[in-house]
């Protein structure tokens, strides 16, 4: 039994309820009760939004889900859904990692990072504004969908590039098929374990560390206020502080008493700044 590991927020965006349902059940997600305009489901650190079909709806749903995340560095976003495949040799139901997204309307290309190690086959994909059927000759990428470019532009606005993934499941070879919910469920269920393995690796590999921890940043902020520092002085203080923390492998807690110190005028402030800078350069 595979389980999803914690601490990193995972945001999944699907276009259709049929795509979302197996995930909602597998992860035990609950619909957010007071939100009516958006189909948002969540549990612990996993959330899922059903966007509706099309890149604009996908971008709106992604923005809704990511605009206020507490820690962008510790959030991954995945666009999961069905796609059409030009190459009839690729099997239906295959889950693929998208390494290039082209927006058909603007002809712009987007390149998700491919740093995370995974075992999925990779493919390029074009996002169209309408259903693509027989016009294969106009398609230069391996896959087609209607959401990825909207999802990608929106998510990379809010979270780091390398935390954004697009995983697509091949549902057809561009035939004019009506979506069969049973078939969709079957295919998604068959790839769920692979999907979970992928999310878990993504969660472990999130990369960017904040240049400075939140607590130390808050200490520096308060000091800047107490000392009424100019922007240049603030940068100097920050540099000294980071250099100090690296050299001494410690935090800035020792600076806390300086907030309480009463400073009456400019002379006292610069005196205090000198003392602090001196300590930080040790």
């Amino acid at each position, binding site marked *: 039994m595979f389980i999803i590991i914690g601490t990193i927020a995972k945001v999944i965006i699907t276009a259709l309820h049929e795509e979302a349902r197996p995930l909602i059940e597998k992860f035990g997600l609950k619909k957010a009760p007071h939100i009516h305009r958006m189909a948002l489901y969540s549990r612990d650190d996993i959330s899922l939004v059903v966007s509706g079909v099309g890149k604009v709806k996908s971008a709106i749903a992604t923005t809704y889900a990511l605009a206020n995340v507490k820690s962008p560095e510790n959030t991954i976003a995945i666009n999961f859904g069905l796609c059409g495949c030009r190459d009839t040799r690729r099997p239906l139901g295959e889950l693929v990692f998208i390494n290039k997204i082209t927006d058909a309307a603007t002809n712009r*290309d987007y390149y998700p990072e491919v*740093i*995370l190690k995974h075992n999925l086959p990779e493919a390029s994909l074009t996002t169209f504004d309408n259903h693509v059927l027989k016009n294969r000759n106009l398609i230069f990428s391996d896959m087609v969908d209607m959401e990825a470019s909207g999802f990608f532009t929106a998510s990379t606005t809010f979270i780091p590039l390398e935390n954004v993934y697009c995983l697509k499941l091949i549902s057809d070879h561009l035939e004019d098929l009506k979506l069969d919910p049973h078939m969709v469920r079957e295919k998604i269920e068959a790839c769920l374990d692979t999907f979970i393995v992928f999310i878990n690796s993504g969660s472990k590999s999130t990369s960017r560390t904040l*240049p400075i921890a939140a607590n130390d940043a808050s200490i520096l902020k308060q000091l800047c206020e107490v000392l009424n520092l100019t922007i240049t002085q603030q940068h100097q203080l920050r540099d000294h502080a980071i*250099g100090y923390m690296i050299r001494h492998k410690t935090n800035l807690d020792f600076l806390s008493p300086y907030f309480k110190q009463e400073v009456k005028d400019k002379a006292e402030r610069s005196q205090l700044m000198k003392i602090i800078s001196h300590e930080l350069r040790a």
Partner: protein
Amino acid sequence: MNYGHSNFSHLYIERAAEKYAMTKHLLSRFSKAKRIFIDNYKDVFARPGQHFQTQKRSIKLILAVKRGHLIYQGSNNAQDFGYSNFHYNANILNCVYNCDYCYLQGMYPSANIVVFVNMEDYFSATNIAINQRTDPDAPLYLAISYDTDLLALESIVPYCREWIEYSRKKNNLLIEIRTKSANYRSLNNLSPHDQVILAWSLAPKTVASRYEINTPSLERRLESASQAIDDGWSVRLCFDPILLVPNWREIYSQFVKETFEKIPAEKIRDISIGTFRMNSEYLKRIKKQRADSDILYFPYETTGRVVSPSQKIKEEINSEISMFLESYIDQKKIEVWV
């Protein structure tokens, strides 16, 4: 545990680059790598939101055709060794190593490596530059391992070899190949000639292991340099940048001693020394991304657009290191970056 792909797991290939021999060579060298076709290398290399140090975990190769300028006049932050016609080029952008003090982190938006495959165009541009050099009494001095470490990549992209063969036939050209690699063996079947300087950047063991990530040890670099000297190449040693680490005097004096235990001082062409310096905008950009190296947070001074230790510190370091060196090598052979 490493959750990243290995280096060069993916090749981004400009469509215009497909027909070049180097592209074909790299496609067969990395036959298992995933191939992603692109219109222009900048679409990948300069896309917004990239994180240099994250990309260093799994570097990709981007194969492209260089358009526009192929050769540049030397920058103010580089030593010209008194050569009036100092130029550099950029056949490859970025480096397999990851030195904390490397300005490429601030200069480029990406850590992925761009290989420009249209070598013949570089040679043509160099021919023109030779003919049009401002000082006809001096050769065109061309640094070819400038925004990269070319020799470190030689077993993958054999450009040093091509430049060495090209320069062999040229009068009025002197090329410098600067490296931290221990990869001399990939050149050792070429016969030496005096239009090439092989320059090894060296650092004390403790400095290299802490600040020059993924580079070969001092010992291996010295072995490489020493073999090149034995084979008859003109070798330069670069003690640059000298970093202001605690106990720097003892560390660097010991390092100079170690170097000349392995390298016959009289056979060295020259030595360059210099302290840390970087374009202030680059340093600012680097600091936005990382706070894990004290060398980036030293209280430097800014003069014009260059950050470096204060003049006083620089003078002190340069004069002490020169003094250590002068017990092995003629002062005239020491080029100090001030």
